[in-house]
């Protein structure tokens, strides 16, 4: 399955599918004549093997959660079952998946790279080295992988759909932004993700700006409060900070309008319901809340990564909060130490972003606000609200879309009024390409980019 341009689910290796009326049984009919890059035909049994491989703890995959909704997945992971009961091969071209209970965005999970099919014999031949010698069913073959240096793909002529228009794609990993820009300027790179520091230069360059692409990404950046302990277990303090920060001004100035103001956690593209009420910048109101609750003169610790762009933003936020009569101590940490600290709930406040794994509002509500996901699973503010929990749970099993959006609207409205986050913005991606590149576009989710459209003049 793949995600189409309108963020809808499109057939790919699965030609079509049927969902039972109770929403638990998915029957997929697989496309015939699809081959792996080692020429072998893809069969339904390969999918069962591939999905179970991800679930198998021996694989150490970070993506087991993609298949955890399937019946029997838990038993298989614990080792008490030899296979996943809910994945059945009916014949070479039919695969049936049974879920524990309905999960409305299940098809989205099947578009993820974790659900890509791999041939058992090749995996077993290479063992732990499979990642250096991968075989799959996609439009390209991995020719060379030098970690932190280059990844080189070569076009496959026998791809089951329209083959790529270019003979290959090389991804170069260039750690230093200015070096990447130099490589682009002298024409060694076809497409460049514009570094933040170079954005205004390209925007103002008459020639280059014609070749800039932009796309509002499926992400939400936020300022998180630790809701599980004082002082931020007090919603009025959260509200005060929210009202005391001029998000729009930060977005328009230091962020150079490289995003859209967020009304709530769910990006507008995915929100099929009315957006929550905006809370405008209001220092007086913010100060009133602080006086009322007696938070005058307290000190908060605010964690950030060492990324310069983020540090700049965090410092501006610090000065806004200081205006309210509250001291903020900024602590800069290297990325993994930072991640660990916020997972453990160490800071009072932190700055973070969330990027979608698949285009469904569920992906912005369940991991981030459900109380079962405290800490590393996504809910790093340790936000707990039984009403929100049950709304999200009910939406998962509701099959009627309209009803689902209603539930999500209620959940989002509640979250916005509880304010575990200061909802900052949805970041826009920018790339610049050489004049000889055509049919180029940015994709909202990396798995959408099959590399078959881009072409040269």
């Amino acid at each position, binding site marked *: 399955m793949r995600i189409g341009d309108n963020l809808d689910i499109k057939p790919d290796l699965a030609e079509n599918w049927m969902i039972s009326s109770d929403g638990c049984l998915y029957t997929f009919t697989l496309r015939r004549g699809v081959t792996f890059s080692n020429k072998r035909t893809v069969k339904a049994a390969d999918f069962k093997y591939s999905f179970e491989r991800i679930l198998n*703890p*021996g694989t*150490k*995959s*970070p*993506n*087991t*959660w993609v298949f*955890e909704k399937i019946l029997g997945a838990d038993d298989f*992971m*614990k080792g008490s079952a030899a296979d996943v009961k809910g994945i059945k091969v009916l014949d070479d071209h039919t695969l049936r998946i049974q879920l524990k209970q309905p999960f409305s965005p299940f098809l989205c999970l099947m578009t993820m790279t974790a659900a890509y099919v791999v041939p058992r014999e090749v995996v077993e031949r290479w063992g*732990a*080295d499979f*990642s*250096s010698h991968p075989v799959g069913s996609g439009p390209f073959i991995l020719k060379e992988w*030098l*970690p*932190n*240096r280059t990844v080189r793909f070569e076009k496959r002529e026998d791809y089951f759909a329209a083959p790529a228009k270019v003979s290959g794609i090389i991804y*170069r*990993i*260039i*750690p*230093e932004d*200015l*070096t*990447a820009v*130099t*490589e682009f*300027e*002298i024409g*060694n790179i076809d497409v460049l993700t514009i570094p933040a520091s170079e954005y205004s230069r390209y925007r103002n360059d008459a020639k280059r700006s014609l070749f800039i692409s932009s796309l509002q990404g499926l992400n939400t950046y936020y300022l998180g409060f630790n809701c599980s302990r004082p002082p931020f277990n007090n919603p009025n303090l959260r509200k005060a900070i929210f009202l005391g920060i001029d998000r729009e001004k930060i977005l328009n100035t230091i962020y150079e309008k490289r995003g859209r103001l967020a009304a709530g956690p769910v990006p507008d593209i995915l929100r099929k319901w009315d957006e929550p009420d905006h809370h405008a910048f209001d220092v007086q109101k913010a100060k009133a809340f602080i006086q009322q609750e007696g938070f005058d003169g307290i000190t908060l610790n605010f964690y950030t990564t060492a990324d310069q762009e983020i540090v700049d933003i965090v410092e501006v936020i610090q000065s806004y909060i200081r205006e309210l009569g509250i001291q903020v101590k900024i602590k800069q940490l*290297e*990325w*993994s*130490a930072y*991640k*660990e*600290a916020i*997972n453990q709930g160490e800071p009072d406040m932190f700055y973070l972003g969330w990027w979608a794994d698949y285009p469904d509002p569920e992906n912005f509500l369940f*991991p981030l606000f459900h109380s079962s996901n405290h*800490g*590393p*699973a*996504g809910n790093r503010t340790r936000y707990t609200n039984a009403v929100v929990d049950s709304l999200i749970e009910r939406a998962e099993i509701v099959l009627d879309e309209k009803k689902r959006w209603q539930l999500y609207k209620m959940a989002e409205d509640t979250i916005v009024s509880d304010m575990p986050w200061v909802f900052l913005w949805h970041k826009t991606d920018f790339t610049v390409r050489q004049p000889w590149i055509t049919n180029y576009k940015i994709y909202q989710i990396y798995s959408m980019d099959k590399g078959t459209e881009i072409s040269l003049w």
Partner: protein
Amino acid sequence: MNTYMVKRLILLIPLLLGVTLLTFSLTKALPGDPVFSLVGERAQPEVIEKIRKELGTDNNVLSQYLGYLKLLMQGEFGRSYYTNRHVVDDIMTKFPNTLKLAVGAMLIAVPAGLMLGFVAALKRNTAIDRIISLCAVSGMSVPVFWSGLLLMLLFSLKLKMLPPSGTGDLQFIILPALTLSLPAMGILSRITRTTVLEILDLPFVKTARAKGIGEIKIHLVHVFRNALIPITTVIGLDFASYLNGAVLTETIFGWDGIGRFTMEGIIKRDYPVIMGCVITGTLIFILINLVVDILYHYLDPRVRIDDKSR
């Protein structure tokens, strides 16, 4: 001499053991759980437990250390937590790159530094001396991320003579090697200048002059040869540190060397990579020091270690 070498080589063993113990304890003390970086953050607790067991990180530290030593004995550093590739293989592919860059930088720094220092000493307190001193001090103090970017702007962007980044043959080496050579060149020219000045005042130079030996011969044969000991020390230290990777230079020029590999390992808490790099690095450092000691022996008879006297 031979007994001395054998002794030095035997000393390597406890030294390396100490280093493994030290780095091992340091990586254990680092914040950040590698299991999380490995399986991501949405993994179930049971799965995390299972992986801890498999990696052995739930054992006590001593048995983890012994397990690691056992692995080392087999000439293995284990697999990277991230790429699942053998750390030994990655070090083997990256080390030649680092070696190329280090040799390149030394080929520029040593002749240039020696020459500049020598000239500065002979022309002491003249305009030439001051200009050379200024250049040397700049070379030592200008950070490579600045000089490197300047060189890149000039040679890649403006003149389009050399590629700005990438790992490869001569045309790729020149820019990073030149960048990396600047600080070493500065230090070398300063040291050479001071040493040569000291030697010029020594009585044996006067004697040589009195004997009627020509100035050029005095400088090349008598002064230069005697100046080589401190210079060799500096070259050895610089070279050894370059062989452990030059993180900044490698980062700017996208050079695929040991330095960036180590750095990425540290950032990602990739313990096998960190340990592998540190141990290899230590080994190189010790070996280079050994080579320098042996060079002393040839350069200066006074340092010669006499087997009989020991």
